[in-house]
């Protein structure tokens, strides 16, 4: 990932969030408080504005700026969680990373950031369920000697698989946890936005 790709990725996320805003809010109204789409849209609109005149020399600078903007504009749990993740990923990418191994290490730092704040584990019906599978896929591709594009596509596929796997789960973290067994049968909104983020990367890479 170079600086241009980081920018393209973030713009692609903003476009995806814009397109799927109502769907995210719909999922959140089933098991949360019906604001995930609105909050993510507010955050990524702020980022689009913040990045317009922002001069970045590294992919990491773009992603750290993205994280900082999310923290200062989203609110809720997703602001700190996504914001912290993008900041951690960015800090690990202070040079262009073309090797999937480097990218995997950056994603691992992001996951550690999310888990440190949110204390969720795989199976709790959260964004972690999509993120952890995406990270595992990038690692697997790296071990197999695949290139960055193949790793990004594998990550997007895996994140969507993780997203779908949240449907039968019972939530144990966040507002959905108060539903207990009634949270089962609904796809998690956080896992859904995480899948959008990884799909946006795959599309940004493939479009080059």
């Amino acid at each position, binding site marked *: 990932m170079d600086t241009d790709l980081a920018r393209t990725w973030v713009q692609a996320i903003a476009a995806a969030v814009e397109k799927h805003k109502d769907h995210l*809010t719909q999922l959140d*109204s089933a098991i949360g*408080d*019906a*604001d995930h789409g*609105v*909050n993510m849209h*507010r955050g990524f609109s702020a980022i689009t504005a913040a990045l317009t005149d922002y001069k970045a020399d590294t992919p990491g600078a773009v992603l750290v700026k993205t994280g900082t903007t999310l*923290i*200062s*504009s*989203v*609110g*809720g*749990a*997703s*602001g*700190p*969680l996504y914001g912290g993740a993008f900041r951690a990923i960015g800090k690990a990418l202070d040079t262009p990373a073309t090797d999937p191994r480097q990218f995997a290490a950056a994603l691992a730092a992001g996951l550690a950031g999310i888990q440190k*704040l*949110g204390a969720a584990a795989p199976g709790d019906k959260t964004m972690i369920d999509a993120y952890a599978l995406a990270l595992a896929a990038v690692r697997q591709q790296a071990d197999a000697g695949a290139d960055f594009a193949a790793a990004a596509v594998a990550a997007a596929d895996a994140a969507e698989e993780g997203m779908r796997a949240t449907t039968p789960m019972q939530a*144990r*973290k*966040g*507002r959905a*946890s*108060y*539903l*207990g067994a*009634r949270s089962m049968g609904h796809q998690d909104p956080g896992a859904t936005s995480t899948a959008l983020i990884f799909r946006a990367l795959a599309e940004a890479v493939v479009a080059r």
Partner: protein
Amino acid sequence: MKKFINAPEAVLAEALAGIAAAHPELKVDGENKVISRGGAGRSGKVALISGGGSGHEPLHGGFVGPGMLDAACPGEVFTSPVPGQMLAAAQSVDGGSGVLFIVKNYTGDVLNFQMAAELAAEAGVSVQTVLVDDDVAVQDSTWTAGRRGTGATVLVEKIAGALAEQGADLAAVAETAKRVNAASRSFAVALTACTTPGSGKPGFDLPEDEMEVGVGIHGEPGRSREKLRPAKEIVATALDAILADQPLAVGDETIVIVNGLGATPLIELYVVFHEVATALADKGIVIARNLVGNYVTSLDMAGVSLTVCKADADMLGLWDAPVNTPALRWGN
């Protein structure tokens, strides 16, 4: 959706402008979204800051003023505020004696206040945090985000606020705030769901003849959904849940809040308070002080929450101390 608004996305900014116009004694920072007492932080006084999603008014902005909060940080409706708001508030009201964050236990609030505390520490402001988690409707707190913060927030803000006004240090104010939370239990029942301006639709479906027992202040589901019953029986259910969690003995003194969730007529709150007073008197429990009214609301939800705090003499003394805020005012 029928609401007195101009546009859903403008509700918070316009409400803040309204608060500024109605309460010239307060300072409303529209850019950072901070409501504070006018003037700089006072030397020797710990500053109290709270905040959370909007839609629970008068919480928190209505409790800013002498004897209670120094600043409040309102987020978007039902969305926690962002760290920058609390940082701006901390820097503006800290008089050098430190800041106490009063945080209701919701994942978003906890995370954003935690980040704000780190930023404030980096800026040289001492911060301690107290989590309010009084809602006994959440039974399985190991496998959920834990008990929710509701009505006890008013007690914590008032009692800790009075102690801070007397010049107690940060550790003492934080300790008292935690003690008040630990002594308080709440339970709520909803008759209708609330509608956020952003979604435009009720947060859940509740048939005409049913009630959500143990509801949260954002419409989170409670323990059960039941057929509507007389007020006396609803109060018995709420009191049973509260007293099962914190048994009280004959002669114990309490502060009781019967709180409307936004769309409950005051006359019904008094019917409920009558039932609470009768039931507690039967058990020999003393209601030393009370509040009946709308203090921690949930937009337009018809519902009521009951909060019982087992209060010692210290707490009662601090409760009685003067307070002068838009929503709580006595002894001045």
